[in-house]
């Protein structure tokens, strides 16, 4: 199983996790300051082509971090699905970005750099931080006036490789190569515009650029793990759970979950659509096995108290679905024990179960005959829970590892 990112709160407790964030912050602040980002003149010079430090630092940081992230993901060390990718709200992002660009040239900082400016005694940094607080305050007071725009053009977790329909490795390599070319151009511009303030290129520039390009090529060659690869990484541990029947929940437990107001239950019915139309559990969604991998991205956004339950006629397809979802690192996934057939056996009325039973059926096919496609209108679709129902409880809510908020949460 991929180990990283670490479930920090589980490992260290809440304050232990906060301490790690404090250390990350210290490293962040120290790097910003030592790059010269505490000095507003240096930052603003970027926009007069005199000193392109901002561009160079930012893009070097992006390509280094990006290459390492996708390299460790390709090697199976890091789980990209558990990493916070800022969701795309295209137009609010662009308008906010334009406003920030104006703020940058007017004020000379961005929020992160103003913090280190303030930390090193820069008075303009202090005024900037105060301004940021006022700006945030004004936003909180006015956002309700344009809430529709603020929530508009939402595209979810949407990445460049998905936009261009190419592999992650291709985008990683392309970004690295483009950035290196821009650095070369930036040096020329600085030499031309900055005159005497321009530095000469660092000695080890070429080998470093070569090494980074080589790593990016490695990312491209290795490729990102597919769903099957991801399952192989966890097969041993998760396969054992399947065999020990730790994740197959009885119909009575599912019914209890559905009626538990503290839990959000998402039921995924992975049978053929015809079977789903004939009969399904009330509120169960139809999902085909093929689409599950793509669906998992959205399911990942469900709140932390969500329990996912897959179901098929028996358990075969439901187990396949469970593997796909677990491989995508979705937490709290269970299988309906005995499938929809078992559900009807538990909750269908005596006569129905006796009269409509299908003899000699093949595995994972419906065990009961329906004359009409009545979907969720059958009484067994939404049985009334009763307290005496006995079952072995198996659902244990697992702390959500996928982050729910990112850098600016």
């Amino acid at each position: 199983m991929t180990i990283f990112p670490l479930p920090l709160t589980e490992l260290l407790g809440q304050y232990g996790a906060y301490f790690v964030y404090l250390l990350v912050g210290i490293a962040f602040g120290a790097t910003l300051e030592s790059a010269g980002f505490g000095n507003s003149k240096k930052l603003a010079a970027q926009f007069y082509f005199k000193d392109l430090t901002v561009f160079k630092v930012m893009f070097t940081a992006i390509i280094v971090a990006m290459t390492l992230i996708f390299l460790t993901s390709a090697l199976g060390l890091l789980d990209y699905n558990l990493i916070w990718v800022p969701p795309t709200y295209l137009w609010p992002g662009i308008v906010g970005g334009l406003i920030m660009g104006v703020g940058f040239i007017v004020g000379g900082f961005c929020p992160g750099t103003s913090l280190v400016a303030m930390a090193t005694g820069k008075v303009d940094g202090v005024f900037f931080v105060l301004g940021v607080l006022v700006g945030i305050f004004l936003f909180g007071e006015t956002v309700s006036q344009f809430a529709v725009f603020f929530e508009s053009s939402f595209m979810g977790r949407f990445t460049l490789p998905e936009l261009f329909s190419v592999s992650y490795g291709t985008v990683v390599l392309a970004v690295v190569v483009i950035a290196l070319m821009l650095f070369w151009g930036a040096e020329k511009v600085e030499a031309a515009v900055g005159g005497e303030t321009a530095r000469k290129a660092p000695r080890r520039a070429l080998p470093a650029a070569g090494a980074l390009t080589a790593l990016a090529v490695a990312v491209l060659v290795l490729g990102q793990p597919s769903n099957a690869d991801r399952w192989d990484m966890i097969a041993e541990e998760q396969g054992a759970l399947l065999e020990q029947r730790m994740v197959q929940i009885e119909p009575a437990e599912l019914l209890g979950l559905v009626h538990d107001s503290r839990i959000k239950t998402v039921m995924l019915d992975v049978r053929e659509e015809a079977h789903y139309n004939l009969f399904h559990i009330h509120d169960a969604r139809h999902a085909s096995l093929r689409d599950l991998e793509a669906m998992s991205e959205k399911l990942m956004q469900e709140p932390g108290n969500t329990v996912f339950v897959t179901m098929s006629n028996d358990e075969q397809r439901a187990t396949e679905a469970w593997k796909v979802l677990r491989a995508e690192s979705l937490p709290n996934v269970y299988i309906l024990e005995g499938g929809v057939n078992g559900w009807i056996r538990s909750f269908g009325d005596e006569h129905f179960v006796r009269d409509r039973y299908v003899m000699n059926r093949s595995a994972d096919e419906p065990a009961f005959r329906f004359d009409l496609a009545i979907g969720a209108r059958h009484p067994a679709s939404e049985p009334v829970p009763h307290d005496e129902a006995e079952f072995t409880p198996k659902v244990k809510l697992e702390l959500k590892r996928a982050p729910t908020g990112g850098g600016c949460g």
Partner: protein
Amino acid sequence: MSERARPYINPYLAGALLGIVLFLAFFITGTGLGASGGLNRLLVYGQNFVAPEHIDQVPYLLKMAGGNTNPLDSWIVYLTAGTFLGGVISGLYGRRMRVETNKGPRISHRTRWIMAFLGGILMGYGARLARGCTSGQALSGGAVLSVGSWAFMFAVFAGAYALAYFLRRFWN
């Protein structure tokens, strides 16, 4: 501070170090870096003292400080505090701790302060609208290839370059 300040480190080296910090943040914690979120929560914490009823009526604030939720009880606050501390440590090491105002030669201190304050307001407002600042969106989102973050990044540079010419008096 009689000794001369150490020079800033080479931008590519600084970028590589920042990249490694950013990578480690993702690798260990699963989230990137950020700054405006911490300031946001600090502000809401203050607001909660002054006008707690108001917080309970604005949905945007409610999420952070509604009822007995403590807005400071979030990792981003610690990250932001760390950023400040890191600045102090690096400033001390580089002998760059000095009360001063960096400005263009043609404007007064007071003008620079007003501009910094106004720029800060725009920055704070824009950062909340864009759901992240240069660190949280551009840097972190850029490294994990989010489409919105890249669009945002181009918008920031576009906004700054578009206005730079008209403000040249303030910086040069």
